[in-house]
């Protein structure tokens, strides 16, 4: 395995911080997009030279591309717990989700158009079900776990064609009870889509799905690829015009992206026990420090969670201002607050959990994060929160 990139790279000039800026950067926003993993990057560069040809062609160049593509399919399928022939490559995670939802609803249109799903699904799942069906949203607890009895009750309702439950939430890290729900969907013969975008590459993907989606960017692979698995016994009809490509969805697959995703996934899967232990310890440290900041709530399940995510909300803090302050100190973090989103809407996940949506900070530790970077983050965090509160005149409220 290639050694990791320096977790701290020189800060680009032009962003001085009044309190004395750090000269290095730490990327701590790996909740949806992780930095390129060196092993995946190497595979990507090699495949640009080797796998550029059309994999449907019969000549040597085409056969080489085909070999790389099918090797990537076999490897990713194995690491996600799918069969090779179930795996479909798409152009993005969003496209994989759209194909899963629309293709299942198309195949089951005689049954109905209702879709049972948790209120904290990925926006692509929510949008696709709104677009093509009638969503029945199931609430979550304050820790973000779906109401299982509410979910399973609705699965038994008339006209339900599909159920969707994420394996874990990408914003707060809470793992969902997929096994419990899968037992009920199976006995009701309702197909279950498990969106594993947050989990794949960081923890084992739960079994029991009929359709599975994943996002290679979350495990350090380049953008330009999505992963969809359609169970061998799942009824699915392509919602798109026919196309004589290599996949069950239209369009050519980026062979270099597929190979990079396979190598990166194999690398993080091999190192999972170690990176789980390291990152769980570091996220525990961040959780403990955040909990000492006045009027700050750490959100998400403290135990049943992904190893690399921590989310907390600070009362009277502007999400955009805190992200900017931390950025200028050299730390890239995410936020679910409305002002940091393109839509100006607060995070639907935080709202569904009934926790503060403003002042939200979302930390995602990439594989290869250093304890030093996390220590430095923990050291500057309370001061950054206090500065933003002072800016808003909110001290002592």
């Amino acid at each position, binding site marked *: 395995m290639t050694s990791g990139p320096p977790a701290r790279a020189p800060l680009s000039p032009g962003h001085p911080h009044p309190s004395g800026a750090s000269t290095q950067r730490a990327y701590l926003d790996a909740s949806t997009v992780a930095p390129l993993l060196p092993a995946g990057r190497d595979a990507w560069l090699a495949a640009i030279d080797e796998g550029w040809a059309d994999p449907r062609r019969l000549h040597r160049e085409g056969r080489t591309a085909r070999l790389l593509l099918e090797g990537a399919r076999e490897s990713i399928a194995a690491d996600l717990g799918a069969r090779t022939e179930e795996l479909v490559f798409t152009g993005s995670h969003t496209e994989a989700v759209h194909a899963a939802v629309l293709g299942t609803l198309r195949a089951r249109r005689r049954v109905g158009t209702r879709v049972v799903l948790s209120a904290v699904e990925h926006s692509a799942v929510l949008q696709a079900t709104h677009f093509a069906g009638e969503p029945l949203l199931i609430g979550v607890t304050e820790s973000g776990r779906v109401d299982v009895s509410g979910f399973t009750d609705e699965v038994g309702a008339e006209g339900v064609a599909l159920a969707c439950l994420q394996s874990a939430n990408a914003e707060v890290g809470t793992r969902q009870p997929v096994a419990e729900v899968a037992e009920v969907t199976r006995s009701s013969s309702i197909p279950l889509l498990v969106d594993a975008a947050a989990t794949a590459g960081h923890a084992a993907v739960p079994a029991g799905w009929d359709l599975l989606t994943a996002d290679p960017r979350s495990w350090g692979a380049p953008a330009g690829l999505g992963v969809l698995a359609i169970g061998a016994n799942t009824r699915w009809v392509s919602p798109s015009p026919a196309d004589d490509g290599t996949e069950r969805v239209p369009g050519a697959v980026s062979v270099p992206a597929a190979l990079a995703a396979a190598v990166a996934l194999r690398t993080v899967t091999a190192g999972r026990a170690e990176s789980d232990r390291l990152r769980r310890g570091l996220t525990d440290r961040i959780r403990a420090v955040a909990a000492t900041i006045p009027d700050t709530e750490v959100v998400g399940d403290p135990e049943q969670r992904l190893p690399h995510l921590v989310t907390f909300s600070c009362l009277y803090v502007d999400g955009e201002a805190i992200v900017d302050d931390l950025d200028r100190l050299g730390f890239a973090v995410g936020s679910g607050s409305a002002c940091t989103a393109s839509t100006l809407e607060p995070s639907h996940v935080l709202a569904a959990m009934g926790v503060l949506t403003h*002042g939200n900070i979302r930390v995602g530790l990439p594989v290869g994060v250093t304890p030093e970077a996390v220590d430095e983050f923990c050291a500057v965090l309370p001061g950054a929160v206090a500065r933003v509160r002072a800016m808003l005149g909110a001290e002592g409220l």
Partner: protein
Amino acid sequence: MVDADELGSEVDARGMRCPLPIIRLAAAARLAVPGSVVTVLSTDPAAEPDIAAWCRMRNAELVGQEWTADDTGDFLRSRVRVG
């Protein structure tokens, strides 16, 4: 006996983005008579979950929240009983 509701105050946070409506609510609550109701008018969609979360964190009672409209447009009216 004076009805505590009659001692209440109103915060007009329409047009403000979170966390400003919550900061205004907190400032009004600090000055309010315990048990009285502070009414917050807001337009930011984040205020709806955030006022509810503030009440939970501050042991205040969320008496009611409803979207309404006048000639300026839609706004949320939240009524909070200060602990």
